[in-house]
């Protein structure tokens, strides 16, 4: 009953904002709509389709053709009630996240029970209780439903709403170890925004761990790539032209549109010296894709869910066109690690930073663009602070995770030969 009320409340907030006059203001915010996910651009693409103009001749549209076909169907069948689709999709995402978190908690309980006798004696009160297992998934659902970032994302009609939905579906598939439910949504996500390609790694590790066979893992990787190729081929078949690749993956990777967003790319590449542009585009893309992938995969191979979350978080910080929808999605996953919050050191700093930048961002944007009394540096500073806050958050969580691991194994007493000792990384 309580959960129904929560979902209804979440739906109410969204529907109210969608039907209010604030919808257009929210949809035009650069923090919410990027060139990659704005619904305005999808509408333009659909309009061009209606006029029988190939929508990828220009560079307004960056959604793959197959997705555009789906949007066309949705728009044509919903008409004025389009927001219902977005709201339902968001509610469903929240439910999927709840399911995924519940399964993850079950997994934690199993591991805990299995390894109980290996833990240090004084670590018993570090163990998770039944209450913890029950409440974390609910926190996840609530965090998704009432996180202002995800609410605005939904009200702004971004295609990230669908992206988040498929990533949530993938996470459910991941935690259950279900081949089809993990690979298909992942392939859809990859073809939409490319960066989820990193999530193949947690999928592979999960299947190896769960099914205890490397073949299963390999099959999952092959299946994902296969689906991805199939989607791309179907997209090609729709018009018989390959040039949409340049407008989708090419656009994501080469960053030609320098419209401001909450990421690091825009001002960096506005101000870049022309002869270094390629070097830095390569290094920034390597930074977000493969630089952290391998070390994190090795370090957190035992916990693919944490690995997936940290990869999602890092892409939300460093990808070329990030939006608040991505950040909100990652933040709503964090309650899965509620038990680590005791170890988090910079919680206050990070939350203050989130709060201040969220208020300050639109303010300095207004000062810069509308009243002309500030300049680009102000907004850039705010995005830097926002990115730093996210970085502190994810590194803090990962740190806490390793600390808890240590404490479970060696106990909580930090003393060597009766002298106070400190935990350090060496």
């Amino acid at each position, binding site marked *: 009953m309580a959960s129904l009320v929560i979902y209804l409340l979440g739906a109410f907030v969204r529907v109210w904002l969608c039907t209010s006059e604030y919808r257009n203001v929210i949809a*035009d915010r650069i923090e919410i709509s990027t060139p990659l996910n704005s619904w305005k651009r999808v509408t333009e693409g659909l309009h061009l389709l209606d006029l029988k*103009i190939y929508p990828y001749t220009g560079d307004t549209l960056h959604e793959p053709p197959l997705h555009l076909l789906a949007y066309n169907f949705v728009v044509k069948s919903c008409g004025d009630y389009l927001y219902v689709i977005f709201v339902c999709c968001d509610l469903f995402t929240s439910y999927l996240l709840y399911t995924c978190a519940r399964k993850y908690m079950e997994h934690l309980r199993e591991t805990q029970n299995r390894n109980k006798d290996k833990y240090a004696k004084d670590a018993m009160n570090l163990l998770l209780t039944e209450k913890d297992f029950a409440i974390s998934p609910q926190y996840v659902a609530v965090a998704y439903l009432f996180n202002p970032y995800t609410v605005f994302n939904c009200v702004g009609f971004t295609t990230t709403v669908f992206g988040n939905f498929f990533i949530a579906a993938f996470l459910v598939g991941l935690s259950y170890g279900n081949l089809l439910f993990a690979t298909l949504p992942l392939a859809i996500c990859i073809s939409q925004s490319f960066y989820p390609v990193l999530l193949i790694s947690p999928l592979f590790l999960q299947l190896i761990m769960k099914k205890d066979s490397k073949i299963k893992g390999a099959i999952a990787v092959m299946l994902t790539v296969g689906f991805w190729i199939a989607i791309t081929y179907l997209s090609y078949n729709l018009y018989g032209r390959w040039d949409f690749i340049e407008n989708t993956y090419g656009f994501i990777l080469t960053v030609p549109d320098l419209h401001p967003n909450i990421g690091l790319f825009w001002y960096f590449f*506005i101000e870049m010296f022309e002869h270094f542009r390629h070097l830095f585009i390569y290094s920034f893309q390597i930074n977000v894709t493969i630089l952290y992938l391998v070390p994190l995969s*090795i370090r957190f191979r035992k916990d693919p869910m944490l690995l997936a979350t940290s990869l999602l978080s890092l892409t939300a910080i460093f990808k070329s066109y990030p939006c608040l929808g991505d950040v909100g999605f990652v933040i709503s996953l964090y309650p899965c690690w509620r038990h680590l919050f005791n170890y988090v050191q910079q919680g206050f700093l990070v939350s203050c930073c989130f709060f201040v930048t969220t208020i300050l961002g639109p303010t300095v944007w207004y000062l810069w663009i509308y009243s002309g009394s500030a300049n680009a540096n102000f907004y850039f500073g705010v995005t830097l602070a926002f990115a730093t806050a996210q970085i502190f958050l994810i590194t803090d969580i990962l740190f806490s995770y390793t600390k808890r691991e240590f404490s479970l194994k060696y106990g909580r007493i930090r003393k*060597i030969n009766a002298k106070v000792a400190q935990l350090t990384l060496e």
Partner: protein
Amino acid sequence: MQTTAFVILVLNSVSLINCGSDSFTEELFIKPLYTDHIYTHFHFSTIWDTDLQTEQFKHTHLFPRALGEIIKRHNVQELHLSLTAGLWRYETWGYPITSAPPGAELWVWFKQDTENVDKNWKELANSLSGLICASLNFIDTSNSISPEYSFRPNGAVADQTLNSSYLRYSALPREIVCTENLTPWKKLLPCESKKGLASLLNSGYIYNTRYHSLSIHFRPICRDLECDVTSIEVNQYVDLVYDYLILGVRNWSIRRLFGQGILGSCPLAKSSTVYVDMSTNSSIPFDLSPEPDEFVHSIRGGYTTKFAKYRVTNETLSISVSHLENSKVLINSPPVLHANQYLTGYGQELGGIVTKLYNNHWNNLDVVVLQNIPWYVPIYLHTLKIQANGETIKPISIRYIPGKLRKRPYYVEIALRLPPRSTTSISADFEHVFLKWTEYPPDASHGFYISSSVISAMLPLTKNITGLPQGASTIADSFNRSSGSGYFVQVHTETMVVTLPTPDFSMPYNVICLACTVVALAFGPLHNITTKRLILKPESNERVVDRLKQRLFLLVNKFKLGRAERAETE
């Protein structure tokens, strides 16, 4: 001495044999406008009876050879270039003989056998840029379009099925026109500016005007009515609009307008004439002195116009006008079709372009609106709204090619039927683009230009029309030439300036450093977490100063030890 004279004589006669089939006419058309302005139009026309396909332009007589070579090299079928300063006010001035937008405009039809049109276009623009000292070299594929309806060939074409992929149109609204363009332009004339009407073009006077436009038009034309053989024609125009306020008096004269009288005709010209439009004489009477050689009446499209005609001989001629009454305020009746264009919205995020078309006719009017919107003003076609007197109307057809960042402009061509006595607005929204810091011009806050839109229509009446019919080469040709299908006019709207948001140009190093620092903030801890192990280390309670002291002590000890060792070995 005698032999050289003979050789020159022979050579002359040879060139006369080769190029004798050409003619040159010069005309000056003066029209007092209903407002306090006077419109003067210089019309220089050179016709050469030769075939464009086979002519090599190795020897020319009256035809400008420099232009001929460019035409040959770049496989040009038809070429129209205009350089304009100021804006033609259609609403009060009526229609000019040739319409031109502020800045530079170039449109060219290439021959059907051209292989790489884009390459030819780029090279042609560069050559013309050198020929008349204008910045036409900025024309490339990123600001050129191939309009389907608006720019049909003016001259004779071999093939009736036209393929607009051989047409290129581009406008540079930022281009500034001045004497450096006029001097090379005058060199293309047979008498240059030494003799004839062109000697009136003194830069000290003609830049003191409200509107000033130079143009060159090249096209093949029919040699006779059957049109089996073609000739080539190059027309050079100067359009000037003087303001009585700037002149200081209403009683204008040739001397007052151009600083000197006409000192005889160009000896190479077939005819040299001055026409004064007398249509305002009925409402604001004036006297001409000297008396014109004759009065010519022209009936076109239901309107009769009276012209005073002067034949320019070798004698000096200065026409002057004295108004009989004091100035009256006249109610101006605007022409059938005119247009405006402006930007909407505030801030540097979202904006809109609005084009307003006014139809003052009692009947429907079919028009074609062409917009060449630069790539830095990305428009959304789904926001396109066409409203006539507040009601949404459907266009007859829309041609649209979306632009691409740094590669291609947005091309919109809309065919519309304007309702009778209506104001139609065409609006579309756009987004401001953020450019790389090197892509901004030196005065970045000045803004970026959007070229004027071109509205083409066939008008049923010749009210306010002075333009030439398609077959005519000279003003004299246009007299008494009525046309059943209507009179073609083009209206160019204002150019617009949009200010794009600018970055801080002094910041590149700082931005690179700060952004990389944030990346490093992630890299450091992640590197530590993934590569290092947690261990317990005894905590030292010493103060920092003590620790430093200890370090220093160790260092000194080490140094001493090293010294002692060295001393031992020695």
